């Protein structure tokens, strides 16, 4: 690689051969270029009479916009090995700063085009924390191919990596609707994954399109509500999806809740069923302030325990 000044007249800034788009703004870039120019030389590759950009697309565009004539660049010869150049380009990208999901997806897509399955250099995959498993790499490549709108959302950081990989390969309407939902809810990674899995499983089980699972007045009502905050909306969406995914368990839980409410239990006594009503271990929780209080509430709980009313709550159906 030679280092030399190259004028913009000699650079084809629109050639996307080596482009890995960030899909996110760099707000400090115009000011930095204006103040200091380009601090770190971009990379170019000779292409006939001109040069194409290998690394530094945004900086070069900004510099040209700022009225600069050209920049000091590192120039690779035309006959240099394209694969080697890509490896350096990717290594530079992942070495310099943390990359976003859209960049990761594009990098994997490029690597799958350059190497046979299993042949991708492990240091590159380790550098972006991606396991060298065919199904994982395939999912990243599917994300890369899912269009600029999706990549923009991935770049925004609103979508967790695990959730993004779950939706790789989904049909476009399904992907769009679940991404839109996640962007509104801005919930944790584990809840995102739960939502994505539930939408998928409900869709498969009921033979519905995934977008159709979310295209429901109740979901629209939750998302458009002005009374609910983000956390409450997330909870309401989860409850709705739980009802669809586990209709019988949900109905059993509601039945249990009605029965408990009908009992009008004192506030210091709580009956807790086993998780998912599995197994026979029910719990009775007593809240007390001291030994005397405990004796009192145990005495007053006894008639309830001895009565048939408790059996009504515990009955299986």
């Amino acid at each position: 690689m030679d280092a030399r000044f190259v004028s913009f007249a000699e650079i084809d800034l629109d050639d996307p051969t080596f482009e890995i788009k960030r899909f996110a703004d760099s707000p400090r870039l115009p000011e930095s270029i204006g103040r200091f120019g380009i601090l770190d030389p971009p990379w170019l590759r000779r292409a006939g009479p001109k040069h194409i950009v290998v690394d530094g697309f945004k900086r070069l565009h900004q510099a040209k916009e700022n009225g600069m004539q050209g920049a000091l660049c590192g120039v690779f010869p035309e006959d240099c090995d394209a694969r080697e150049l890509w490896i350096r380009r990717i290594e530079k990208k992942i070495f310099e700063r943390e990359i976003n999901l859209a960049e990761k997806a594009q990098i994997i897509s490029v690597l799958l085009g350059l190497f046979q399955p299993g042949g991708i250099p492990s240091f590159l995959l380790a550098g972006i924390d991606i396991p060298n498993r065919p199904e994982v790499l395939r999912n990243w490549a599917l994300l890369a191919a899912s269009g600029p709108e999706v990549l923009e959302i991935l770049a925004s950081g609103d979508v967790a990596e695990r959730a993004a990989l779950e939706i790789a390969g989904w049909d476009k309407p399904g992907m769009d609707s679940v991404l839109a939902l996640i962007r509104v809810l801005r919930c944790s990674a584990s809840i995102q994954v739960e939502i994505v899995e539930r939408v998928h499983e409900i869709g498969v089980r009921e033979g519905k399109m995934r977008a159709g699972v979310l295209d429901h007045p109740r979901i629209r009502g939750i998302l458009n509500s002005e009374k609910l905050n983000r956390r409450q909306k997330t909870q309401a969406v989860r409850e709705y999806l739980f009802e669809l995914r586990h209709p019988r368990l949900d109905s059993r839980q509601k039945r249990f809740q009605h029965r408990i409410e009908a009992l009008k239990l004192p506030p210091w006594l709580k009956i807790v069923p086993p998780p998912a009503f599995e197994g026979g271990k029910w719990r009775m929780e007593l809240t007390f302030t001291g030994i005397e209080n405990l004796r009192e509430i145990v005495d007053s709980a006894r008639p309830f325990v001895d009565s048939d009313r408790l059996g009504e709550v515990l009955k299986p159906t």
Partner: protein
Amino acid sequence: MRMIRPPKRVIVESSVAQGQLVALLRKNLPGATFEIVDEICENRLHDPDILEVADFKGKFLKSCPGTRHYHCCGYMILNFGTQCTLGCSYCILQNYLNQPNLRLFGNLDNMFSELSDVLTQNHARLHRIGTGEFTDSLLLDPFTELSRLLVPYFASAPNAVLELKTKTDFVENLLELDHKGHTVVAWSLNSAEIRRSEEPFTASIEKRLDAARLCAEKGYFLAFHFDPIIDYPGWKSGYAKTLEQLFSKVDPSRIVWISLGALRFMPELKDTLRSRHALSRIAFGEFIRGLDGKMRYFRDIRSELFSFMVERIRQADPDLCVYLCMESDDIWKESLGFSPEERGGLGRMLDCALEERMNVRPF
């Protein structure tokens, strides 16, 4: 069911190369190449053309891997090999074992010697021993003829009963054996729809039942295992039809027990289903995580599945021993009307079934 495709390569550990099993395989697999190796390499890649014959160093007899949370039958597993090529979508063997190829244990002498030790040491106990846990009991029988060794062995063991459990119809070797009422031939059954979608390489339900009838005609007692029962639209008519077929082909008095188990699986199986059986819908049922960590249907669904089956079975034979595989007291009571403890425990229930139907009892 046509016979399975014979293995093309048999890889044999040298220490068992002169044994009886390898001799039988050489006789029954004339087209196969036999490779003798010091030790079979652990291999993560499945090759359906390979059959491995290893020198097994562990214990051949193990207790059924039940957990303390659910009632277990107290069955003993005689482990003569591992893996299966029937390819059922829900099969736990896909995830259980890091040996993907069919494997038999060639040191049969050690197996029979261990068996004799256990039966002699515990001679006052009735032993229910099965071979269908880590492989199908009869899948390779046309090539191994193991049944010709096992059935006569148990015929002379007064305190033991062998249960051969299969989804094949490979019973030819059994038909001329003198079993003396100490072998139960058992089939896993399902609805025809589930058989087609989830067990496509197994014998059809009709063929399994034809094979069962043949065995009954030869004096064998039979058992049937509806496991896994799967909740799908139309399950009632599907399972009712299989039960109708069963009782029309087989005299219920020849059946020593029927077990019922609803689909349950380790959570990891979900990924396997997704990658290997993409069309399968069985993992999308209403599952919860059970007390043993396995995914199982929400209890009300299990209870409904079992109650339906029990009612239909009792219509055919009210005295037939029906039991639930890996279920808790409350599900037993809802489905069968009693808990195993009320009858001395599940193990005792099954021993009684053997005594009553087959007249087998320990010393």
